[in-house]
């Protein structure tokens, strides 16, 4: 069977990460921002899985599980914040939320 060059997996992870980065930098809707963060976290997980497959060790998959847990906790807290923000300001525009100045 023909093998997969493992840098191709890492290249896929970097492309997904860059797309997520563009999303974080360009969007102003806070829900889109959270979705772009998810894309970036997922790309990191993909890089760990590629490394795990390359060296045939399960450690990379364990790290992926940790990233999954982190993403779940982050999304729960982030979405709770979004609901509270929407209740108070009736907007999802992050530029309108500049009142929080320390």
């Amino acid at each position, binding site marked *: 069977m023909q093998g997969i060059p493992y840098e191709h997996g890492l290249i896929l992870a970097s492309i997904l990460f860059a797309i997520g980065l563009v999303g974080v930098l360009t969007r*102003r809707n806070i829900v889109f921002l959270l979705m772009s963060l998810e894309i970036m976290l997922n790309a990191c*997980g993909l890089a760990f899985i590629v490394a795990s497959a390359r060296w045939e*060790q399960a450690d990379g998959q364990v790290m992926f599980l940790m990233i999954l847990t982190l993403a779940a906790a982050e999304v729960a807290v982030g*979405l709770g914040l979004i609901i509270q923000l929407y209740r108070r300001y009736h907007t999802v525009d992050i530029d309108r939320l500049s009142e929080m100045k320390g």
Partner: protein
Amino acid sequence: MTLLFYLAGAVAVISTLCVIVQTNIVHALIYLILSLLAVAVVFFSLGAPFAAVLEAIVYAGAIMVLFLFVIMMLNLGQHSRDQERSWLQARGWILPGTLAAVLLVQLLNVLLVIDHDFVPTEVGVLEVSALLFGPYVLAVELASILLLAGLVAAYHLAKK
């Protein structure tokens, strides 16, 4: 398996691109689910079936359902779609897009130097579980505490 990897990778990249250029938030979410499922197929083709199953269940299932519920609660209609379209002007994304592309090219430059083929061998549930409940048992406990903290915080924040 090789064909599966490249096919699923292409689907993941295209659908992720669709996520960040969408103006309708529900369509973006559906594209994101497609992207996550494609990444799950990539995991499977790399010989990580346990991670693939978790990606489909936890990411594409649980986390995306959370997003869907919040979007339904926010009830964003036509107005927000027009607003999104006005925000997505070229002058808003050309500079960040160029910067991210430069970073990507640098990363690819580093990655293309090395060249080793490998045939993916399956690292199954048994090996992962043996590690999880062996050397990484403290990390598993800490992850459960993190999830508990997330639960309490989300309950407190979203309360009226």
